């Protein structure tokens, strides 16, 4: 598993842990009310579970599993992939904090970061969606 995938997947698991914690607090509060502020965790819970956990996990697995190139740089433009990872996580955190503390501009900036991150990820992965067998096969596809 390449280092970038390790980071994507481990980060997704951290978000999963946070998302399950928020969800657990929300569910507990529904059954046995604790603090009224608990419901403010709903939007951060959704953000963290959808983008932080599932989407990021899929990105990590995709970078690991899709067909590679032969020789150096077999995973494609990894530098761009790291930019994607960084922007994605800045974006998720910004959007989640924005939703939690009702800072709409922060949420918007976060979502734009996620958008750029996904755009970079598509650029990195696009050439790897090809038949197995390296450069020759890629040219023929």
């Amino acid at each position: 598993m390449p280092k970038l995938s390790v980071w994507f997947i481990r980060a997704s698991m951290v978000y999963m842990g946070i998302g399950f914690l928020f969800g657990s607090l929300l569910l507990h509060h529904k059954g046995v009310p604790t603090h009224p502020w608990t419901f403010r965790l709903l939007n951060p819970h959704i953000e963290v579970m959808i983008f932080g956990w599932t989407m990021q996990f899929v990105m990590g697995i995709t970078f690991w599993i899709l067909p590679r190139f032969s020789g150096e740089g077999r995973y494609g433009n990894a530098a761009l992939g790291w930019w994607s990872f960084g922007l994605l996580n800045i974006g998720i955190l910004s959007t989640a904090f924005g939703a939690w503390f009702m800072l709409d501009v922060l949420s918007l900036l976060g979502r734009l970061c996620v958008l750029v991150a996904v755009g970079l990820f598509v650029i990195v992965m696009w050439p790897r969606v090809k038949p197995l067998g390296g450069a020759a096969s890629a040219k023929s596809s």
Partner: protein
Amino acid sequence: MPTLSRWFIKIGMLYFAIGLMMSAALLAQPVMGWSASLQVLRPVYLHFLFIGWVSQVIMGVGYWMFPKQSKDNPRGSERVGWAVFILLNVGMVLRAIGEPAIILAPQAGLGWTLAIASLCLLLAGWGFILNSWGRIKER
């Protein structure tokens, strides 16, 4: 494929099917003129799809396909894996009962089912993370 993965994936597919049935029922409710109280299923259906199906199938496939932790202990603790499976599904079933019940029959005092479900789901999620963390590594 390990037995535990087969259970995760097969039960996950049941949640997928049942979640979609609930979704269809929710969409059919205003069209067919059914009782609006059916809408209490909305959070249950969302969690059936997202936790029961998506997260559970990731857990099953992850337990099977993630890089091996070591030769002696290739998939982490199988016991923890089973505990995660049981806690996740007990939590999901309890919330499927409790979430509609606290709205439709608040006098029944079933809020405790959600408190237990929340603990089961939290332990399941964190258990999966702890059991898988060491397998997410460069080869």
